[in-house]
């Protein structure tokens, strides 16, 4: 088991983003126990993703357990619809040791389904949505939709 380490900088980030330490631990434990996670061997970096309640949490952490970042989004994965295998990343899917590539994932939020681009591979059911996408585009889209629906 990986022992999660949260530096003061990351603790601030978590606070800002409304993510609890328990969310982080649960997500890391899930990635470690199932190997349903991405890894970047050169940087000894891991990336686990887990749906907990009404949000999906994503945590990136070193092999040592030190969390480098964490973010979340409310949009929920419905289906992976498209694979663009020529657009590759260095991230590797841990369970099968496959190099991951660009995918399109249908994500749902308050009754609206839209596509988001993410990393993934054919043998994995998980979509790895990048941080900038989650905290910028998707966060703003969620906010606009909430206002629109009066949620």
């Amino acid at each position: 088991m990986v022992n999660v380490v949260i530096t003061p900088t990351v603790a601030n980030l978590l606070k800002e983003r409304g993510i609890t330490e328990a969310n982080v631990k649960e997500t890391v434990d899930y990635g470690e126990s199932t190997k349903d996670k991405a890894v970047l061997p050169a940087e000894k970096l891991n990336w686990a993703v887990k749906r907990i309640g009404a949000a999906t949490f994503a945590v990136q952490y070193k092999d040592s357990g030190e969390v480098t970042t964490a973010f979340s989004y409310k949009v929920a994965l419905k289906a992976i619809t498209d694979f663009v295998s020529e657009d590759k990343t260095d991230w590797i899917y841990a369970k099968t040791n496959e190099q991951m590539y660009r995918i399109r994932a249908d994500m749902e939020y308050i009754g609206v389904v839209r596509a988001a681009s993410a990393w993934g591979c054919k043998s994995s059911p998980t979509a790895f949505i990048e941080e900038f996408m989650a905290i910028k585009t998707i966060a703003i889209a969620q906010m606009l939709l909430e206002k629109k629906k009066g949620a």
Partner: protein
Amino acid sequence: MGEVIGETKSLCPVCLSLVEAQRVVENGQVFLVKECPDHGLFKVPVWDDARYYSEVEHYDHPKVVPQVFKEWEKDAPSKMWDPSQQLQSTCLTVVEVTDGCNLKCPYCFASSDSSKMTNLDMETLRGMFTAVSTKVKKPTVVQISGGEPTIRNDLPEIVAMAKGLKIDFIQLNTNGVRLAKEDGYAGVMKKAGVDSVYLGFDTFDREVWKKICGVDLLDLKLKAVENCRRAGLPIELVPKIIPGLNVDQIGKIIEFAKKNIGIIKGVHFQPISYFGRVPAEPKDENYITIPSLLREIERQTGGEITPDDFIPTGCADVHCDTKCFGFVSEGRFVSLTKMSGKFSPDLDITRTVREGVYGSWGNILAKEAGLLDGDQPMSDKDCGCGTWMGLVKDLTLNALTISAMHFQDAWNIDYGRLRNCCIHEVMPDGRFVPFCLFNASDVRGRAPFRELWCAQNRK
């Protein structure tokens, strides 16, 4: 007399001397009460909801002490103003390029008409734009104004010069006559570097146009909007609201903006203030203050937009302005700002306002969402329909800002508000003056700072 809730200073509308003044609550309304030793007592309504008056104070934002007013140390018109009291830096600068106009409206800040024709020369204007780009924090916003700037045939060169001097946003304050009458003029303005048109738009009632501007301008205004649409030149509608004339038009103007969403980025209401040329000395019933304006918005939009959707920007004094950011979706206005809640996402409101002055907070949010590549919208390939990016793009393209600023005239001016002023007029000599002070005129329409503007130009 009612309850005194604050001490301040104001002007005597007869002799324009600084006088002591008090904010007084009477029957739930806030008045400014002041006495000039020579010209007697004045009591003017400033805010018609005393509870709301104190509520908005929570939105006061820390101010950035300005340096620009030090330049007045030696020769400030001390009878009217102590520049060392100014507390806020510049948000928007106003550069008047002429005092002449092709109209002669009965209500005109600048008392303009076709007989006046002080056109600042290019060198003077260069100095004024340089003053803005060197003294004001980026992004710099200049409103090119007058008089009517479009009467100058060299306006494209003036605009291009401002852009060349690194002014980030250029707003063109115009009556729209030339935009309507001259084919291709909107395109010329856009090409020269105008980012947004600040278009006076007071009513849909032809008779009322005659009262406000002396002639029926409705067709010209509509044509101006059409021409801007064809040129892709964004518009902010600027209705000045005059009790007894066009208060009933508020809802219709908002509806018009919603129908023309995409090209109309904002509606900026200006409750009337009595500067320059006005038909008569104002009485209480000639004022409409921000709270009643907001109630009218609610009433005339059938509750679609409510006072709770508006917050003071906190950049100017909290009693000077109010603003609501939103977007139009399926014909309805959806507000993002809430007085009772937080603006989300947590954008720095001051920054948003600075960049949003020219009418589109949507661009800021789009940029924030990663939808702009530099200043260019991302291609449809990257954020086409069906994606979350596409959704943000669609909604932000339909952004609409509804706002108001109640300028202060010699009757209702409160120096507590003036100290926090962030809208600054640039004098021909490159010095800055708070906008309301620049326009302050006495009962006869004499405006000392406007006279100075003319005098500096003659030099």
